[in-house]
């Protein structure tokens, strides 16, 4: 074969030759690879170990993509940036390929052209496969693995081992470029986006994944990133709970907070039990009242009751009130304190109920007032209540 020189001028090919490789594709290697090889030799000292490591290559691009996806690099800026770079690389190589095709055909060597065209077309296909793999990176990793496996099969079937060398070199270089660029991107973006890290969990996930940006100076391991996200979620929820549970703003530390939350939930459940007991005692006489209340808007009264409920929580929290079904027998006359604002809020629904309770409006009102007096006394002093104490209070009202 006449050694046709494209770019290279008969010099020894810098590209390592496999033993037994036909020389026909050599000029293609020379013309095709010089730019790439210069770069690659700088970056990859292990380019000479290509032949033994050849079977590993086709899986590398897929592996790199999967690793990048597992480490949750953001697809918006990071991975698309990577893909843009790789696509631009592909474009450059595509141009080189087309140039080589032109130069090859000009030499008039049919077999060589066929081999070269096959090589170049295959590498183009491989490039397109890689681009499609990159675009599908968000979806599933299996397809990329399958594609890389098919690429492996395609390459092995090929006659031109040089083509394999080219494709593998290119793939390795791309893989290396991708990793180095990903690291660079992470560093650059980490320094730029440290302020934006708070929104990582709030990003709308594309598909099934939540994309998290690795912070500057932190490990980019997939496990540590996931753990960091989890810790942030837990701390966020603990802060929210801290706002909910009253009296927890001054408490710090997760253990004490948790105890407070548990105590609060237990006290609320005890309150529900106690109130249901009280309601059961009061209920038999309120058949008509409930119908009335259903028609009226009772929620206006709830706003005024919020202050008492705050007291109620402490009352239940510090001591256990015994159940007193007979605590406030009906029909007790009592003092009237019109200055009580709480009573005013209650009197409005009471006055609404009056048409239904004509027989004893007076008694019901005074009974209600007595209840309020008892409650206000408890709130003011908050003493430990005993049954006798509660039972004697209405009697005081009697005497007055």
């Amino acid at each position, binding site marked *: 074969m006449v050694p046709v020189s494209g770019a290279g001028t008969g010099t020894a090919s810098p590209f390592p030759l496999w033993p037994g490789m036909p020389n026909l594709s050599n000029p293609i290697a020379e013309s095709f690879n010089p730019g790439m090889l210069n770069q690659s030799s700088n970056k990859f000292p292990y380019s000479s170990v290509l032949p033994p490591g050849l079977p590993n290559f086709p899986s590398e691009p897929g592996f790199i993509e999967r690793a990048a996806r597992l480490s949750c690099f953001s697809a918006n800026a990071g991975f698309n940036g990577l893909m843009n770079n790789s696509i631009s690389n592909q474009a450059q190589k595509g141009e080189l390929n087309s140039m080589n095709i032109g130069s090859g055909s000009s030499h008039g060597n049919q077999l060589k052209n066929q081999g070269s065209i096959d090589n170049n077309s295959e590498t183009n296909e491989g490039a397109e496969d890689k681009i499609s793999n990159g675009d599908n990176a968000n979806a599933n990793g299996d397809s990329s693995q399958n594609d890389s496996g098919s690429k492996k099969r395609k390459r092995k079937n090929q006659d031109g081992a040089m083509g394999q060398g080219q494709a593998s070199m290119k793939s390795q270089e791309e893989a290396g470029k991708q990793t180095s660029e990903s690291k660079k991107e992470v560093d650059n973006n980490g320094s730029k986006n440290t302020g934006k890290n708070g929104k990582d969990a709030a990003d709308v996930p594309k598909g099934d994944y939540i994309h998290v940006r690795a912070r500057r100076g932190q490990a980019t391991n997939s496990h540590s990133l996931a753990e960091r996200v989890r810790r942030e979620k837990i701390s966020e929820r603990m802060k929210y*709970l801290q706002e909910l549970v009253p009296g927890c703003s001054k408490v710090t530390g997760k253990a004490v907070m948790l105890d407070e939350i548990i105590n609060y939930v237990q006290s609320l459940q005890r309150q529900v039990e106690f109130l249901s007991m009280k309601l059961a005692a009061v209920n038999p006489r*309120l058949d008509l009242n409930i119908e009335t209340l259903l028609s009226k808007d*009772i929620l206006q009264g709830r706003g005024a009751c919020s202050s008492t409920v705050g007291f109620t929580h402490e009352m239940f929290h510090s001591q256990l009130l015994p159940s007193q079904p007979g605590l406030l027998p009906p029909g007790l006359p009592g003092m009237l304190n019109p200055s009580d604002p709480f009573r005013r809020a209650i009197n409005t629904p009471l006055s609404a109920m009056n048409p239904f309770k004509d027989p004893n409006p007076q008694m019901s009102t005074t009974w209600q007032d007595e209840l309020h007096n008892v409650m206000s006394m408890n709130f003011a002093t908050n003493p430990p209540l005993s049954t006798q104490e509660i039972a004697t209070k209405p009697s005081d009202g009697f005497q007055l």
Partner: protein
Amino acid sequence: MNRKNPLPNSNPNSPNSSMQALHFLQALARIARAAPKPAHSARTRQIRHAAYASMAHSSRSSRRTWSRALLHRLRQWQQQRPGRLLTVRRRVRIVTPITSRPEEPARAETLRQLVPGGRGMEYCNLLEETADYVQCLRAQVQLMQTLLDAFSS
């Protein structure tokens, strides 16, 4: 995400709590209209069940895990006759050690027992459910307190 924590809802006039209140009032009316049982404890139990049922049916919590678990528990309670001291549980639930992870503190187990449906959840979801459960419980307590105060003889 839909499951992001909403702001703490302390407004008693929100539509969530009004639905809860309405449900509870209707249940109370039903209990009052029913044949008045002489046993005070039976009535107490009915009212307590009504309270929890109205909590579970409120619009805010109908999508939550704890509300479904609470309804399930309510059904178990209602099927249980008051005279029976021992209940035979047909399905034994085995709590796998997966629920207790090294990440969460030791008190998390207590919280799991308190919040309905807490045993099958991860710690991070447990906290979210606890927050919603606390909100509903507080609203229910406020509602019952107001009712108690508004009701007279």
